[in-house]
């Protein structure tokens, strides 16, 4: 078989496909994919609508002409596909189109080809191509998806595809059908195979990609160049100082401000999603660093922001004290909630793709955006950080010096800490290297302190470190990391405080680290001559305070009650109560005299210690009561006889007689009670 024969055989027209359900499934898959692309802003809504209309019309046209497709349609399809490809390659080579947006031309190319191709799908094989093209388009859309909402589109698309494929078998087997069990087994097999493949699939190679995303989201200009903003949930609002026990604020509890006040006790909305990060490896997402400790708060005194005006991508200078070079790590930040206008990044940021004409750079590596970073903002950072091993840090005896002003700031202490210095010296008495000293102090902190967000307010005028190390030794990341920094500085080791976010939880579906408000963190950076600033997190080894079950339960209950939407709950409850009451009212009927006499009889018997058995008729029960009362007149039997005559004999007594009998039942009961007492 020659290649020509193979091509000729592959191009032979297939048998016309008559299955309407197969075409509907194929059309559904295509429409879902187009909607997904539109949802991810890869094609405009008008383009999506036009594509959906064309695909639908094309499918109908193909079905109608499936047995005798017109000859010119092939030419139209070929010309349309070629035109789309030419446009695509021209878009790629056009310098006015950013290469970072390669997905959009690719999406448009695939959508165009799909729309054109849908006019010539007479055979089953052509429909298979449409399914395959929809898979490719869904993959292109998935490249931009950063949340689990995209899963809805994937699920619906997969449902249409699986339905279509099973319909394809039904059509190919001349009307065979699959049982429900067979379908379930098939779908389960697909799910298991996909799950196994997903588990064993290596992580995406983030650093080899060619798209460096940068997109402007909600935000707006900050106004003051280099100022921190993002306070109060508004991206462009300037950060203000936090207040004690205030809510989470950029300028407050989170510490993203010019000062980091360790005396503040904020309320943190831990579940709020701040941003999602796609990165090669997890890192601390550094926001800013502080060099000056004032006993209660950290202050950045060496921050002189310089604007970088070259435009995206920005080539970032090497921060003071850092050693250039190392492993490359590419990170893309997708801002989901309002946060500070700090450009968070992994350590050693060297290049930045950012949707602004300039950014502000500080000597310590802090990056500040001129625009507020609201939801939808995207930027990409390339970091080249050295990741030395413990042995390398332990052997780091190279000589290098920080610039004098910087060094003095990173060894600064507001006053003498004799107790702290003595404690640090005693802990590190047997350690000779910087790394060992750091580890010894971290080990001591881990063994002697406890972590808790619920700590008492710092007394006015007290030093936070003294209070933590020699007080109750309970605190959170700010107190713990500050104590380590002060102890290291007391030993003459250059140290600074860093704030930002921990990597956050990794979502294997989206391949993103999800950074929430509760991931805000403070840690310590220690300077090593040969490797620059290295991060250490003493909080990670600190055990939490054992919770009090009662307090925790009450707090959880209170929190749960606070989350209950009371207005609709109460409204629903009142509505249900009203319905129940109405139903009971409808069922309610006034008790007849016979029923009242019967109830009176039973009540009297119960009080006399002789309840009525289920198998007893009323005359039998009345006779036993008469016997119990030793009453010769037999009042209960007379009443029971009247009730029976009314119920089964149709002899209804007069109104006066009925009233008399009801009263007699009541009176007889009273007599019985009197008789017992006497």
């Amino acid at each position, binding site marked *: 078989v020659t290649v020509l024969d193979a091509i000729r055989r592959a191009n032979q027209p297939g048998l016309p496909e008559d299955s309407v359900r197969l075409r509907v499934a194929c059309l559904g898959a295509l429409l879902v994919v187009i909607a997904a692309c539109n949802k991810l802003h890869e094609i405009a809504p008008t383009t999506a609508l036009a594509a959906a209309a064309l695909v639908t019309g094309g499918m109908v046209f193909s079905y109608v002409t499936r047995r005798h497709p017109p000859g010119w349609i092939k030419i139209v399809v070929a010309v349309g596909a070629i035109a789309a490809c030419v446009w695509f390659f021209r878009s790629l080579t056009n310098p006015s189109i950013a290469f970072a947006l390669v997905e959009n031309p690719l999406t448009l190319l695939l959508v165009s080809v799909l729309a054109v191709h849908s006019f010539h799908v007479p055979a089953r094989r052509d429909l298979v191509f449409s399914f395959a093209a929809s*898979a490719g388009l869904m993959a292109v859309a*998935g490249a931009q998806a950063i949340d689990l909402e995209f899963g809805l589109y994937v699920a619906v698309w997969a449902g249409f595809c699986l339905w279509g*494929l099973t319909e394809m078998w039904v059509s190919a087997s001349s009307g065979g059908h699959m049982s429900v069990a067979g379908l379930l087994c098939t779908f389960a097999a*697909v799910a298991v195979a996909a799950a196994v493949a997903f588990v064993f699939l290596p992580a995406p190679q983030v650093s080899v*990609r060619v798209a460096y995303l940068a997109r402007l989201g909600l935000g707006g200009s900050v106004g003051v160049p280099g100022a921190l903003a993002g306070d109060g949930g508004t991206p462009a609002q300037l950060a203000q100082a936090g207040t004690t026990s205030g809510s989470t604020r950029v300028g407050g509890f989170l510490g993203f401000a010019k000062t980091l006040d360790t005396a503040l006790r904020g309320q943190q909305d831990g579940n709020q999603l701040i941003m999602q990060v*796609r990165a090669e490896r997890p890192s601390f997402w550094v926001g800013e660093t502080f060099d000056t400790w004032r006993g209660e708060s950290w202050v950045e005194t060496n921050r002189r922001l310089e604007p970088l005006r070259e435009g995206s991508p920005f080539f970032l200078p090497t921060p003071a004290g850092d050693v250039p070079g190392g492993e490359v790590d590419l990170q893309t930040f997708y801002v989901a909630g309002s946060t500070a206008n700090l450009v968070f990044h992994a350590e050693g940021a060297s290049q930045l793709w950012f949707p602004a004409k300039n950014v502000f750079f500080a000597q310590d590596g802090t990056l500040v955006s001129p625009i507020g970073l609201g939801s939808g903002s995207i930027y990409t950072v390339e970091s080249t950080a050295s990741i030395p091993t413990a042995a390398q840090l332990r052997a780091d005896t190279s000589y290098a010096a920080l610039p004098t002003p910087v060094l003095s700031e990173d060894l600064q202490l507001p006053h003498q800490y004799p107790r702290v210095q003595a404690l640090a010296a005693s802990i590190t008495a047997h350690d000779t290297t910087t790394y060992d000293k750091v580890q010894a102090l971290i080990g001591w902190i881990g063994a002697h302190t406890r972590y808790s967000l619920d700590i008492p307010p710092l007394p006015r005028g007290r030093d936070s470190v003294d209070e933590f190390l020699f007080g109750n030794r309970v605190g959170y990341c700010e107190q713990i990391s500050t104590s380590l920094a002060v102890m290291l500085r007391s030993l003459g080791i250059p140290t600074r405080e860093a704030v930002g976010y921990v990597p956050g939880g990794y979502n294997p579906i989206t391949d*993103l680290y999800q950074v929430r408000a509760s991931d805000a963190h403070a840690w310590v950076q220690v300077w090593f001559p040969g490797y620059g600033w290295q991060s250490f997190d003493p909080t990670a080894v600190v055990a939490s305070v054992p919770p009090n079950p009662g307090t925790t339960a009450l707090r959880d209950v209170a929190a749960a009650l606070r989350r209950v939407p009371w207005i609709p709950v109460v409204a629903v409850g009142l509505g249900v109560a009203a319905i129940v009451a109405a139903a009971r009212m409808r069922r309610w009927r006034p008790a007849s005299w016979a029923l009242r006499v019967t109830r009176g009889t039973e009540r009297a018997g119960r009080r006399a210690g002789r309840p009525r058995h289920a198998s007893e008729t009323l005359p039998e029960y009345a006779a036993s009561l008469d016997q119990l009362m030793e009453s010769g007149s037999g009042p209960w039997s007379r009443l029971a006889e009247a009730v029976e005559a009314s119920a089964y004999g149709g002899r209804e007594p007069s109104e006066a007689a009925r009233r008399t009998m009801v009263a007699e039942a009541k009176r007889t009961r009273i007599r019985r009670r009197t008789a017992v007492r006497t």
Partner: protein
Amino acid sequence: MITAATVVTVWWLVAHNAGAGWVQFVGVLVFGTLLVGVAGPAVAVGRVRIQVSAAPADAMAGVPFEVHLLASNRVRIRPLDPPGSEVFAGPAGRKDRPDIVVVVPPHRGVRRAVTLEVASAAPFALQWWRRTAVVALPQDLHVAPRIGRPEPQRQTGPEEAGSIVARPVADAGLPRGARPYRPGDHRRAVHWRVTAHAGSMMVKELENPTGRAVVVVVALPMDPDEAERAAERGLGAVVDLLAEGATVVLQTRESSGVVTAPVADRRHAGRRLARAISSAEGPRTILTNATDATAAGP
């Protein structure tokens, strides 16, 4: 396969371009679908149970006949031996009827099974897998040879008759009843039990006139094609003789030995010839008049 390769390539390009987990998720869904689509038919073909619910007991070479099949899953069936037309069998819609496959036996013989090629592309019709299945028939299928043109009759001579065939029985034919003895009746036709009851001589009344019984000797050669032709000629001779009203005694060699027995009709003769096996004596169809035991060469 080209489509699958295209999808995988596009997926790989996009996945490495974007590094998105969703791309991998979509990719593994496609992979799972392709895997099930490729491997599923093998499972379906391997697990399918096929049985013949009905088949005729007699057939003729070259003449189509129907075989009723029951398949547990929907599969495509192509009869290989005997060959036949392709058909889909198995559950379809709500009907639960056996599927019919038409086969054409190419030559005579006794069949106890049919060989089928079973294929499936379930559940996605992406890939066909096939295997060969031998399915037993509910009863032996006798495929008679085609009705060939009979050779010019060769009757054995008196000196040859005794050496070639045993003397045929005189009561060839099927008993139908008894009648009073008439002069000329063969003494072996006397029905002694009925005679005892009736008190007078009674003889068996046979279906066919027993006056002219012909022995047809069909000896098949070793060559299969030659044997087929010889059987066809033999059957043609038998059919012609039966049409003439003669009593035919067919002598063939079966696996149990030489069988000499009358044949009542074409079906009976076909069965005998279906069971006949070859022998080293060479092709021969010899007709022997049982009455005068004369023979004639072709």
